[in-house]
């Protein structure tokens, strides 16, 4: 079987949300001498990216996305075990994610957390209605590379600005990337408050984050 066929089969197992098939393809690709890293990046990761696109179009639903992410995790575990220690993929980054204090909306933030996890990030979802101090405490505790804050309302959005200031006051602002999201956030809002970027959707967030972490 050609390389591209292996990749396509891997993609299809994710689109089919079929964990058993994903594990089988992962194992068989190794037997066939495929490079595990290529299978991860061009096969299973591509599959989950496509699932994310379909979710954003309303063609795939959250439970399907979750099952697909589990299938991908299972397949990647098999492939990673076959990698030499020095090639084993490290986490792309450590992210602390939460909805600012006063805001109880957590649906979008939860979806972003799931998508970031399956794209190789270590995500610490600290929930909703989160005081600023807790963002900072958690970021320190896990040595975060990225802090993401969500706010759904103009009345709570100010919390994202306060977070930026609090990070400066704590001497941490230059050590982390900050990203903002939520229904009322925009590129301009991110610039205005000094955040590194605005993530409009899961796909947009992952794309921009990868640029920042290059």
């Amino acid at each position: 079987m050609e390389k591209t066929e292996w990749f396509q089969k891997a993609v299809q197992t994710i689109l089919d949300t079929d964990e058993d098939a994903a594990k089988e393809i992962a194992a068989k690709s190794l037997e066939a001498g495929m490079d595990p890293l290529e299978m991860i990046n061009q096969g299973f990761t591509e599959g989950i990216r496509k699932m994310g696109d379909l979710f954003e179009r309303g063609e795939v639903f959250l439970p399907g996305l979750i099952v697909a992410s589990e299938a991908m995790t299972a397949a990647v575990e098999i492939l990673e075990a076959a990698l030499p220690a020095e090639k084993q993929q490290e986490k792309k980054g450590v992210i602390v994610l939460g909805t600012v204090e006063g805001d109880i909306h957590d649906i979008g933030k939860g979806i972003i957390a799931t998508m970031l996890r399956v794209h190789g990030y270590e995500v610490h979802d600290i929930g909703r209605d989160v005081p600023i101090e807790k963002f900072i405490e958690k970021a320190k505790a896990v040595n975060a590379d990225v802090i993401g804050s969500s706010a759904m309302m103009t009345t709570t959005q100010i919390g994202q600005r306060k977070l930026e200031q609090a990070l400066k006051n704590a001497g941490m602002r230059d050590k982390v990337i900050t990203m903002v999201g939520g229904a009322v956030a925009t590129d301009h809002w991110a610039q205005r408050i000094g955040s590194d970027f605005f993530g409009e959707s899961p796909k947009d967030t992952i794309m921009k984050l990868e640029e920042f972490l290059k």
Partner: protein
Amino acid sequence: MGKIMTRMGSGFPVEMSESQLMEDLSAGTEDAADRGKIPPLSKEELKYLFDLFTSTDRFLSVETGKEIVLSYDAAPLKLMRTAVDVHRIQSLQIYEKLLGADTLELGHVDYSFKPVKPIVSTEQTVLEQSLLVTHPPLFYGAMPNLGLYSQPDGPFPNPSELMPLGKIAAARDAYEKAVEDAVKDIVYVSSAMYESGADGINMDTTGAAGDADFLAALRATEILKQKYPDVCIEVGMAGEFILGLHGELDYNGNRLAGMYVHDQVKMAEKAGVTIFGPVVNMKSTRSCPWNLSRAITFTKACCEVASIPIHVNMGMGVGGVPLTNHPPVDITSRASKAMVEICRLDGL
């Protein structure tokens, strides 16, 4: 022609060339057509939008005779947000006498059915007093807001926490239980308001918490129409498609998840909704021409299949109006004119 001044979806000004403008208009309608599996706008309609955006007039309006009904959701809350200190009844009077409102809506600051339930009697009194002094039809409005039924704000486990743990069955069960409670609350509050004399009930931002949220509104509508056949029910949506957070909920055999506005309205009609309010959200990173072309494509498809009046949502960040607290009138007026004239709307 030189550069055309228009705006981004965030409201910020941006310059475009003629070709860029037409590219964005085409891309916007194609995006909607592709997602919704609906026809894109015709060349004539795109040319109409092109002329709108190349016009240097600050303010545009519909042709005489094409005026539509303006219904305002949550009017008292909007004055409250400007820190103008007026009572809610005075707010309604300001909307009817000073702002050209064709309908009025009373709402509580929490704007959700659940928190209104324990204070419904005081809300009824305000509604009854409002009815004594106002003239246009008066809605009572609130959101189904299914999020309020999950822990820590409500009795049921939080699906947003269960789902990432892979506990899909438990998450779905929590959504289903939340629907049952939400329906009871919507019916309870709406019944009280109707029996106090409200002309209509507005279920606003429906679907914000996904397919279960929409299902709650549809089921509540069914019950209310059985109890009060004459009640007017308006259902306003939260987005162009129903987020599939449960994923398997159906209404009369139709899966709700992933439904776009032209299918949503058919569900609303089946449930007995009187007026439907489709929503198409703005992408702040795309231009207003792209957004308006896209929003009109979705809305037109909805209007074409609807047999009930359509009042499209055109507030902050929806329906072609930029995502900013203070939308510029150049864009609001263009969006208003184009949406009404292309879609043949019944109201906003």
